[in-house]
Structures are given as C-alpha cells and as structure tokens.
C-alpha cells in the first residue's frame, strides 16, 4: 500500500487546517451557505435529509487494517456506529455534525486518509479493479497509475471548478471489474501490437439522466503519458463543457455534442502541446510509488486441494461460499476472498463499527493486513492462504459476513435512497431487503446464477442501475414511490445499458415482478446461460409479458 511521505502528510494536514478555518468562518456567518457549499463539498461534506454526510476517500479501494480500525473509531465517536461503502469504493457516514467535521478530518489524516474532492465539481476518487495486483487475468497492477493520477488531481488549481463532477476508473485487466465504460475517463490496460502494456482511453461514459457507454478516444497510450493526456482531456472539458444547465454539464454531453472524432481532434491538439513538458511522469517517481505496490513475500504454496475438497463435500454451505465468494489468485496456494456485506434483510454496503474492527483483525490474521473495497459495496481480502480458507469462512460466518452471494441475485447494489439522501425520489433499502430475503436460499441463488441487481433511488443513478442485469429506478409518481425496471445492463468489458421494461410499479409489486423475471429466465435459458445472455438472446417480450401480464408494456389493471 502507498504510504504518505512528508509531502503527502503535510498536504492533508494543511487541508484540515484550511477546512477548520472555513468551518469557523461559516459558523460565524463570514461565509454564506452559497459561498461555503462548494468548499464543504470539496471536503466531502453533504447536507442530507437527517444531518451532514461525510464521504471519505478510499483511494482505488485500498485500506490497511489500521485505517479500517480508524474508520470504525470514527463511526463510533462521531456517528451512530456504522458506515456505508459506496459504488465508488468510498465510505460514507450519515450522521455528521458540521462543527465536528474538522476533527474527523484530523483523525483521518492521522492514518493517511482524507475526504478531499470526494464531492464537488472536480476530479473525484480514482477507482480501480478491487482485485488489482492479485487477479490471474491482470496484465499489470494499475495502482501506481491510480496513485499518480490521485496526486495529479488533488487540489489541482486549474480543474477545481469544472462544469461538473469528474470520475476516473482504471483496470489493469481485460476483464473489467471497475466499470470503466461508464466513467468520465476509463482506462483499460492492454497490450499493443508490439506486446507493450498501455492504456486504452475511454471518455464520456456515464449514468444519471443520460446514460452513455464511453467511447475510445485513444486505442493505446504509454502509461508514462497518462497524466498529460488526462490533462488534455480535462482542459478541453473545462473550456468547452456546458455550464448553463447542471443536467447537461458532464463530459458525456460534450463528447456527444461534438462527436468523438471532433473531441479527439481537440484533445490530441492540446496534448501535442503538453506531452513532452513537465507532466511527463518521472520514472524515478513512478518507481518510488510502484515500490509500495510490490507483491508481498508469499509463502511457498502448500497443496491443500484435497483437504479443501473434503471440507466442501462435508459442508454444503462452505462449498457454496467457496464457489461464489472465493476467486483465484495469481500466486499458487493463495486465494481472493470476497467479504459479503449483503446479508439478506440487511442494508447493502452498511457495516457496523464492531464488525469493521473484526474485519481488520481478520485482515491482519489472514490477509497481510490489507482490505479492499469493491464498487459492489463489499469488502475483499486479497491475500488469503488456501490453507486458511475454511477457518476464515467460519470467522466470517460468525459475524454474518459470509453470505455466499457474490455476483448473485442477493448481492444487490443499492444507493442509500430516500431513507438518507436529499436527492432521492424513493427508498432503495426496503426494496433491497425484500429482494435479498426473497433470494435468501443458497440453493436458489446458485440455481439462478450470475445476476446483478442494482437499485437507484433517483435518476442520479448512484446505484448504477443502468448497468445492472436488472436495474431498479425509484421515481416519484404523484407523491408515491414507484419503481421502473430495466433489463440487460452490464458494467464489465461487454458493457451495456439496460432496457426499460414498462411503466413504473408501486413498491409492493416489485419483489413479485423480480420473481417473475427470474422465473422467466429459468424457463428460457439454454444450458448454463447467464441471465444477461438469455435476455440478449430472447429480448424483452417474454419478460415484459411476465411482469405486466402482456407484452404491450401497459400495466396490468
């Protein structure tokens, strides 16, 4: 993991002092709310339904056990004893007081964490593949470039007042676990014809009111040029992005309006001016940072295949967990363990302070002290010895974090929704809980197989519903909470946006509708075809008919 040097530490300490001053000015009335709001947003502080909400950056999803314990301490001391992990690998606290926020930021700075630019019209947390550095299919660990982009974007004086927020995601693997196609900039590592690793640069992806799959602006670029190229993209966006309408201000709108060819021309022209200047990444600096991501000293692998198989044969719940929650590791004898924060009936992505401490302990005991946050609102332990899998499973099971559902129907992604968020039209959490309970049977989960269900409480799409295999969008219909369903979305390397099933359904009808959709899939699938592929093969008609009673799209009486 990256460790702050004196420059990184001084910067966050100075930022805390600045924000403390700004809060003082606001409380004394020397700053109006209008003047203060962008300042507090750029320190991650929102005003929501119940209180202020603080969004803390987890850079490219990486946490040490010490940091996770501090997050638990903050939840206990300044909040109501829990936190919420988000679709951008961050953590949110829902019950924050403004006058205590500077103290929270100071405590975060003590463990090399911060909330800088986790909101605001600036570059947000750079997210990454949560298996970075460990996945078998990875070409190169992207975290060095994530850290370089993080430092490039933090308190960047030219790009702190962009037309709108700006999100970057990075994957070092061709199998995209970071949803790069629906980010403002997506970077996908791959080899060029000469076999050299570099980034495909995708631009103008996004969700919200106008979902767009990003377009390739450059097929391949050396990683050493990524900062100057990102600067060119940002500068053209800063200059020409719309500022007249906040719903038309993202870069996706600009790229659509100009067309990707014209936009590329403008970016490449700008890049030509700066590519050989001060923004070239100094190899010494990238080596310095990359050293922090060097693989740990792994033990000589022990073949425990037979033992693991025997344990699975003896216990079907262990077998189910192995099947769904454990992923292959690039090093023999090791495994990647997904810690499910999706116990049926619970709030997706929420974790109590006590359980955060337990996960930190388990990370120390079983995973070399490191924890990852997945954009699917789960945690990951990336360096678990295969010999420890059964013991770890028992420990996780004892604290309710071993639901065998990763990537399955009850691994629901849900935004906080109207229970917390001032922007929401409808509540997502009760829907998530109902659906989760509906799919609480492990056999049923496995029978249905890979199925992503995403719930957003409003068109801002923080639940990423456009790229869920089943998407659920909360809408306000005459003061009532209604939900529109979409099918066929996907956030991986075959990214697609979901298609609308029909008119919004009242909350009470949603679980049954999901059940009908899944039953239809089970009836129609061929072999072990996944839900999304069955949908792509057979189309909307049978699903629409199952939900509405006919395929005309008219709601059943």
């Amino acid at each position: 993991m990256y460790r702050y040097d004196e420059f990184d530490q001084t910067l966050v300490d100075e930022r805390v002092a600045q924000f403390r001053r700004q809060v003082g000015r606001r409380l004394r009335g020397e700053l109006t709310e209008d003047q203060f709001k962008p300042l507090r947003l750029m320190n991650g502080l929102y005003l929501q339904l119940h209180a202020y909400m603080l969004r803390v950056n987890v850079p490219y999803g990486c946490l040490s056990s010490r940091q996770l314990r501090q997050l638990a301490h903050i939840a206990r001391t300044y909040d109501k004893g829990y936190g919420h992990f988000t679709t951008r690998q961050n953590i949110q606290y829902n019950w924050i007081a403004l006058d205590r926020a500077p103290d929270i930021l100071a405590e975060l700075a003590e463990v090399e964490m911060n909330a800088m630019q986790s909101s605001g019209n600036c570059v947000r947390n750079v997210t990454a593949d949560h298996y970075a550095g460990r996945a078998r299919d990875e070409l190169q660990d992207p975290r060095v470039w994530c850290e370089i982009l993080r430092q490039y974007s933090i308190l960047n004086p030219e790009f702190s007042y962009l037309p709108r927020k700006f999100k970057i995601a990075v994957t070092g693997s061709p199998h995209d676990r970071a949803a790069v196609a629906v980010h403002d900039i997506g970077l996908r590592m791959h080899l060029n014809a000469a076999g050299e690793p570099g980034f495909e640069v995708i631009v103008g992806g996004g969700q919200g009111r106008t979902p767009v799959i990003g377009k390739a602006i450059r097929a391949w670029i050396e990683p050493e040029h990524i900062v100057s190229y990102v600067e060119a993209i940002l500068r053209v966006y800063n200059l020409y992005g719309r500022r007249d309408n906040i719903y038309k201000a993202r870069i996706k709108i600009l790229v659509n309006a100009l067309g990707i060819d014209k936009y590329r021309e403008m970016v490449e022209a700008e890049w030509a001016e700066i590519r050989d200047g001060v923004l070239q990444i100094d190899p010494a600096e990238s080596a310095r940072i990359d050293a922090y991501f060097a693989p740990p000293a792994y033990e000589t692998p022990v073949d425990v295949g037979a033992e693991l198989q025997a344990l699975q044969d003896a216990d079907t719940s262990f077998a189910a967990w192995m099947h769904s929650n454990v992923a292959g590791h690039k090093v023999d004898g090791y495994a990647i363990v997904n810690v499910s924060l999706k116990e049926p009936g619970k709030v997706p992505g929420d974790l109590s302070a006590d359980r955060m401490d337990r996960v930190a302990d388990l990370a120390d005991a079983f995973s070399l002290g490191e924890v990852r946050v997945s954009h699917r609102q789960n945690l990951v332990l990336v360096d678990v010895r295969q010999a420890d899998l059964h013991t770890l499973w028992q420990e996780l099971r004892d604290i309710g974090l071993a639901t065998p559902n990763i990537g399955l129907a009850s691994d629901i992604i849900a935004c906080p929704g109207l229970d917390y968020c001032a922007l929401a039209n409808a509540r997502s959490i009760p829907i998530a809980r109902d659906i989760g309970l509906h799919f609480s049977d492990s056999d049923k989960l496995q029978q249905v197989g890979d199925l992503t269900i995403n719930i957003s409480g409003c068109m801002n799409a923080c639940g990423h519903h456009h790229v869920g295999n089943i998407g659920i969008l909360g809408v306000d219909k005459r003061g009532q909470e209604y939900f529109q369903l979409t099918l066929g979305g996907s956030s991986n390397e075959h990214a697609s946006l979901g298609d609308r099933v029909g008119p919004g359904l009242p909350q009470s009808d949603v679980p049954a509708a999901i059940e009908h959709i899944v039953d239809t899939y089970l009836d129609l699938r061929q072999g072990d075809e996944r839900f999304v592929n069955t949908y792509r093969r057979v189309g909307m008609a049978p699903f629409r008919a199952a939900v509405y009673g006919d395929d005309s799209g008219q709601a059943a009486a």
Partner: protein
Amino acid sequence: MKQMLIANRLHDGTVVFRATDGSWVESIAAGTMIDDEQRAAQLLECSRADEAANIVIDPNLIGVIERDGVRVPVRIREAIRANGPTSAVDIAKIGR
C-alpha cells in the same frame, strides 16, 4: 391541512422544527402547527431571518396531519426526516 416549518440546524445538520417561541426543536411534537396561509408566510420570513443569522439552513413549509395525536408529515420524505430512516431497525440489530 396544517403546516410546519422544517429545517436543518446549521452547526450539526439535525432536522429541526420551528416552535411557537421561535426556537428550533428536534421533536416534531414540540413544533408549532400553523393553521393559515398568512401566518405560514410570516413564519417562513422569520425562518429566513434565522437562516441569515446562521442558525438553520433551508427552512421550508411542509404539510402535516395529525393522526391519533401523532403528527405525520404528508410527504414521505419529510416523514423520514421527522422519524429517521425506515431502515433504522438495522442500527439496533448490527452486531454489537
């Protein structure tokens, strides 16, 4: 239908309701119910003054009905603000 004034307290973000004496209270039961439009407009003006005085943020009028002695905001969003998240039962259950 009656109305109340709701806002967030500036220094800690807590949801508060305007009481008869002009103070801002956390309990909806202790806030003042407003019967007529003219009074509502007057109190909204007073609330805006409180906003300018850095006591509250974003005061606004909400519709509230009284049901079996309990005050229930008409809009679900305000009901959630008054009573807390409907998922709150989880806070009690999460492993302590």
